[in-house]
């Protein structure tokens, strides 16, 4: 990935979280670059560590969480050893975040206007009066009526979708260079979700910030992401452009996720699935953790972690299957058929 305007970069990051049940290795060696105007989709299931990767960019690890090795760069300065005070100057000024559950992301006892103005006062260092005007302007920008009555109303008087718009307005108040969206639409209805995604895409064009979009829904992320990174058990297993992920998936876990996209599937076929469930990362065994659930596991998978193999300049896969010495393996038939359909749909679009 050539040197573009890199805003932030995670380099071989390891995060452990001390809990009652033991030490969870939430993130086990992750590297990612965040460039302006570019959206990265982070796809993974629960317990895969994707939220930890996002929260560490703001120094918001939960109690007992700590970066054990690796670096985080922001404007080329390492920030993983920041003190709370240093983190605070970064938060809400250049990096902003919106959360999954709109019902709990706003303080129930404070009017939305005050919470919005607070974000503006902190980031722009302006007076509260001036902040109020900007706040009303932001409400309009996210598609809400900018009336004083709305400014002084409370979060519980809003539906989920409207609250998420307020959260987005708050995140935009500081014109962030990096916007982290942690499954912002999972708790919303399909129609509200579509509107929120549309809003985020529009705002990215206007503000030109880098976006880290975390989700478990591949087709949703395909609408806005330039690149997609598939995460399993605290590591990135495949990272490529959206097109490459959908048309030339290489990692068995990506195959499984693609096969789980239901509206893709013919009705009477049995869905291709992998048994078991995402592992609990308390002193996990060595080697590739996915091999415990994959039909394509190799002997070496249980000894060493696979390195990244460069399938193309923008496509890297962490799987021993890519090693020339490994037996060649093809993806499930059902998935091949679906990718054919998808490819023809793509060509169809170009011809019209």
């Amino acid at each position, binding site marked *: 990935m050539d040197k573009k305007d890199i805003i932030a970069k995670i380099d071989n990051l390891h995060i452990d979280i001390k809990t009652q049940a033991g030490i969870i290795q939430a993130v086990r060696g992750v590297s990612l670059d965040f460039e302006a105007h570019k959206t990265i989709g982070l796809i993974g*299931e629960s317990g895969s560590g994707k939220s930890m990767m996002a929260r560490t960019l703001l120094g918001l690890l939960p109690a007992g969480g700590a970066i054990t090795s690796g670096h985080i760069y922001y404007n080329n300065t390492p920030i993983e050893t920041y003190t709370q005070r240093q983190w605070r100057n970064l938060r809400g000024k250049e990096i902003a975040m919106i959360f999954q559950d709109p019902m709990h992301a706003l303080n129930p006892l404070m009017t939305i206007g005050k919470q919005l103005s607070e974000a503006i006062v902190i980031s722009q260092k302006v007076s509260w009066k001036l902040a109020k005007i900007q706040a009303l302007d932001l409400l309009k920008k996210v598609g809400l009526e900018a009336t004083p009555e709305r400014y002084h109303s409370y979060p519980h008087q809003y539906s989920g979708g409207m609250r998420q718009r307020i959260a987005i307005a708050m995140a935009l108040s500081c014109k962030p260079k990096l916007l982290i969206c942690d499954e912002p639409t999972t708790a919303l*209805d399909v129609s509200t979700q*579509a509107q929120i995604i549309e809003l985020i895409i529009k705002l990215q064009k206007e503000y030109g910030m880098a976006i880290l979009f975390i989700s478990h829904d591949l087709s949703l992320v*395909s609408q806005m992401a330039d690149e997609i990174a598939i995460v399993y058990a605290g590591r990135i297993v495949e990272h490529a452009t959206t097109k490459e992920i959908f048309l030339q998936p290489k990692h068995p876990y990506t195959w499984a*996720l693609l096969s789980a996209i*239901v*509206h893709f599937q013919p009705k009477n076929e049995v*869905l291709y699935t992998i048994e078991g469930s995402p592992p609990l990362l308390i002193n996990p065994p060595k080697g590739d953790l996915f091999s415990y659930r994959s039909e394509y596991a190799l002997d070496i998978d249980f000894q060493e972690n696979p390195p990244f193999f460069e399938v193309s300049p923008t496509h890297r896969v962490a799987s021993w299957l890519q090693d020339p010495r490994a037996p060649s393996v093809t993806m499930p038939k059902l998935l091949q058929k679906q990718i054919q359909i998808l490819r023809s749909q793509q060509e169809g679009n170009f011809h019209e």
Partner: protein
Amino acid sequence: MNNTIPLLSVQNVSLSFKQSRHHQVHALKNISFSIKQGEIFGLVGESGSGKSTMGRAIARLVTPQTGSIKLETRELLCKMTSKERLDSSRDIQMIFQDPMSALNPKWTVMQMLLEPLHIHQGKLPKQEKEDTVFTMMQQVGLDPAFANRYVHEFSGGQRQRISIARALMNRPKLLICDESIAALDLSIQAQIVNLLKSLREQFNLSMIFISHDLSMVHYISDRIGVIYKGDLLEIADADTIYYHPQHDYTKSLLHAIPKITLV
């Protein structure tokens, strides 16, 4: 059993909640539909559409003000003696959305699965009951060795399997699945959906699959009903709803489903 009588027939069911002193919420407005034997009926709608209330009304967890719900010939909405309630409770079972709250945290899996047998087949010898539990666990893909474990030691997907096992212990005729996979990861959802489809053949089961995810409902159901703010807008077989919807609301729902876009 001649298959002309529908397994379940719902006629003009209306239900409203008293939200506050003078504010009524009309959850269900005059809903009618029927389900044939062995059919999977999908009920799709957004949050607040009343789809769960419909499921709970059929499960008799809430009682509608008007209308009738018949299981084959037996009317479910009338006052029942405890004996009648016991009998009718064998035929309809339900699995829920949140695997964390659907199982009693203080019970082991064995106790959980023995409960339906205690209530309905109390006379069976203890060993026979336990054997039924072990076979049922295998049928839903659970390792019988885990029978004495506590519920919180299982993953979301495994817990949903326990709920399904519990629901099928007494061979119900109708299984209501209320958003049963919404809380699960994608790969686990696929496992549970495959399981439900295979159980349908094995147990000759009819199902109501309630969900907000239209593509999953289309995949699994034979017929689909689209519900919006308490009104059943459209009923048709799955492919017609999915590819040639009539009602504008169904069209907007379909349009909102995120399509794979590779620009």
